């Protein structure tokens, strides 16, 4: 396992959002997907800072999309998950599965 490439929890959420959105993964849609899934408002800066980190780790690639009038003529930047990103997602899920045996359904501290 490439331990220097282990995902952070927010990185994992953003990667999962890109996977979920498939061909429509760009800043605003990723932000909305993360917001809906977590129930929290996320800043666009936090999303792009994470996307930048993921791109430097080669987990995602990005390309310039179309510019639309409602965006003030500014182009979208689409993101796609790469095989290394999928592998990193798989590894973090494995780590959680191995270490999560003691976790019970009640997060308050009840015992099973």
């Amino acid at each position, binding site marked *: 396992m490439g331990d220097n490439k282990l995902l952070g929890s927010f990185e994992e959420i953003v990667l999962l959002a890109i996977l979920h959105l498939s061909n429509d993964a760009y800043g*605003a849609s990723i932000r909305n997907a993360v917001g809906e899934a977590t129930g929290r408002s996320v800043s666009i800066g936090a999303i*792009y*800072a994470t996307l930048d980190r993921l791109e430097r780790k080669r987990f995602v690639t990005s390309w310039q999309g179309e510019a639309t*009038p409602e*965006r003030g003529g500014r182009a*979208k930047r689409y993101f796609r998950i790469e095989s290394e990103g999928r592998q990193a997602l798989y590894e973090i899920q494995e780590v959680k599965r191995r270490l999560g045996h003691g976790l019970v359904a009640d997060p308050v501290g009840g015992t099973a």
Partner: protein
Amino acid sequence: MTMIFAGRARANSEQNGENEFASSKAEDLFSEVNVVFGTAIFDGTSVLLVMDCAVDLVDPSCSPPQFAEMILILALSPKKYRDSQVGDLAEDFVRYRAKYGRGFARLWYWKEVLREVSYAIPRSIRWGLILAWVEETIRWYM
């Protein structure tokens, strides 16, 4: 010219098909503009379109507040994504404007800008301190 109607389609019937009909009728009515945000009211025989915002027309109220956008451009990082980030927020601004009105959209936009600025300030202070330390060190040796 292709037009997308995005907004609130209201019909006298609860059926979804009626709403779709209202939207398509709105497309026929306004064929001169690309994107229209508004309310289409279908009473069974005709469609009344209340237009909120036609983005491709020169209407400053359809764009985010310019001063806020300037501040945002200064605050955002990383630089290579800056244009896309500003575009993403502009897209959400138009969406909120169509859904909740201009006042709400402007408030929301300013909140987003202040949020980004609050993230940027600690970074600036850090760099300020580093530069001040370098300057002091150089002065010490000169």
